[in-house]
């Protein structure tokens, strides 16, 4: 049965502190009524964040400098040992795989969606239907999309090899060939992200004032000029937004790798998050110390991405 109690039902104290008597007297600083009510309203969220975000954050740092026994129980302080262990070719490969996966999955999904959205701007009929069709992948979860791609990539009976076969090419081991697996997982990820990108860019196009476009048309701008000089510059906030959000999303990707390749073959698709999973949870491994150190690396990379979002790049974007 659903745990009804967890949704923190409002209790009577809230009503009491919210009574008019405590709030009518304005301009008096530090009235307990309003402050008390405020903290009471914030309490459920603050409690959740404290317990399940901030405390675990500190705990991750703690675990990353401690050893653990084979059952995962935290043991002695080991200093930077787990961090030193990461200065290895193995972890270097994990970082390189993560970077490549991010590149392969972010760039094509944004450029492809931009291309489609610009084409939808050419005055044609059926734009609404087409836009909805192109946005459909948004409705698919990572798990459902990954399973569909697992069927398509099946080496013996999958459609991907069926197509190659009917064109006279040899079969490809999409998910078990070390040089093909990462691009194959990236293609599936591009597909998963495509719908969201279409929605964001379409919303951006819809916000462009028709007068600007009409003025450019009257001045004789062709379709290409219109796109490159007007639409794309005016879409730069959305494009920038997508670059940051997709990068963060790609760095966090897990489900498609777990379903399609389990990090293999030969570690070819072991990204940072997958590596954390393997160290901490896969095959009964409970190496929480080493996994936590990698989690700290993930955290630092994500914070850097956020810093880029708010700092350097944002100034170069054309805002209306």
């Amino acid at each position, binding site marked *: 049965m659903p745990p009804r109690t967890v949704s923190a039902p409002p209790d009577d104290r809230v009503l009491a502190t919210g009574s008019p008597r405590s709030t009518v007297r304005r301009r008096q600083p530090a009235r307990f009524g309003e402050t008390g009510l405020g903290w009471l309203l914030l309490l459920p969220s603050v409690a959740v964040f404290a317990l399940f975000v901030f405390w675990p954050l500190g705990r*991750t740092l703690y675990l990353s400098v401690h050893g653990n026994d084979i059952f995962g129980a935290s043991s002695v302080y080991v200093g930077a040992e787990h961090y030193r262990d990461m200065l290895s070719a193995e972890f270097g490969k994990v970082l390189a795989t993560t970077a490549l996966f991010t590149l392969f999955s972010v760039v094509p999904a944004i450029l492809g969606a931009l291309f489609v959205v610009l084409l939808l701007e050419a005055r044609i009929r059926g734009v609404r239907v087409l836009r909805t069709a192109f946005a459909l992948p948004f409705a698919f979860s990572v798990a459902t999309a990954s399973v*569909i*791609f697992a069927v398509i990539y099946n080496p013996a009976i999958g*459609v991907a090899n069926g197509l190659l076969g009917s064109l006279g090419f040899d079969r490809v081991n999409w998910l078990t060939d070390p040089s093909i697996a990462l691009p194959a997982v990236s293609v599936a990820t591009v597909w998963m992200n495509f719908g969201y990108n279409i*929605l964001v860019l379409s919303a951006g196009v819809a916000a462009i004032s028709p007068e600007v476009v009409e003025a450019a048309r009257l001045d004789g701008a062709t379709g290409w000029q219109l796109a490159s000089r007007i639409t794309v510059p005016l879409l730069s906030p959305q494009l920038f937004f997508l670059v940051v959000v997709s990068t963060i999303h790609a760095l966090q990707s*897990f489900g498609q790798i777990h379903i399609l390749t389990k990090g293999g073959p030969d570690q070819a698709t072991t990204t940072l998050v997958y590596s954390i999973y393997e160290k901490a949870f896969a095959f009964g491994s409970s190496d929480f110390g080493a996994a936590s150190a990698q*989690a700290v690396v993930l955290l630092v990379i*994500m914070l850097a991405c956020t810093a880029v979002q708010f700092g350097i790049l944002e100034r170069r974007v054309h805002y209306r």
Partner: protein
Amino acid sequence: MKKFRLGQAVVYVVLGLAAIPVLFPVYYGFVGAVMGPGDLATYPPALVPSELHWQNVTDVFRSVPLGRFYANSAVQAGVITVAQIVTSILAAYAFAFLRLPAKAATFGLFLATLMVPWEAIIIPNYLAISGWGLARGGVTYLGLVLPFLASAFGTFLLRQAFLQFPSELRDAAVIDGCGHWRLLWRVIVPLSKPSIAAVGVYVFLSAWNQYFWPLILIRDTEYQTLQIGISQLNDAEAAQPGLVLAGVALSLLPTLAVVIFGQRYIVRGLTAGALR
């Protein structure tokens, strides 16, 4: 004029070509679900079913307890959605309408949670929740939802919506003896329904689609969620893609419905989703 028509034709052709890779997995996910072994387990595989093999849809329930997975996901996503809406409304009201000491700092702390990737703090959360015994039996539901009962994204989006109301509204309501509680539930919440719906749609989709947390937490098949169930179905029945795709198609129905009927709310929450 003739040149313009030609240009349009080219646009249609290019869009049509671009639509093939985007729509094919959608098509295959649903059509493959009613294809028989004669169409799927052969080489080269058929793209159009030779007959409608509806048996997949009933067989998949025999392979895995899909109905149970469905119910588990409904409870998990339902509780998370309702809880996040309630906690976000309460917090957003405090941030938008109440004078509080250290309000800006507290709000900053809320926003800071958005910068912490769940994957970076999943280990201590797992140790805590499983250590409290919430990974086995009926309390698994509690373990599934506990870390996700509040949302900085929802609070942020609703605060933005609440700030659209003139501050006179608050003062008038308070002076009329209405009180904060009634102002919130009788005036602010009813007038903010579209924003609340936007939060609801996003929270539901992300809760329903969760993968990492249920994967590592749940020990008993009875309490497995649909996403993990589909992945296990794929592992167990790889030789019968029709069965696997039937499970996929069935599991897609709720999110498809939410995306189609909640489309305008999705667009509303798009840019706010920047912060997720």
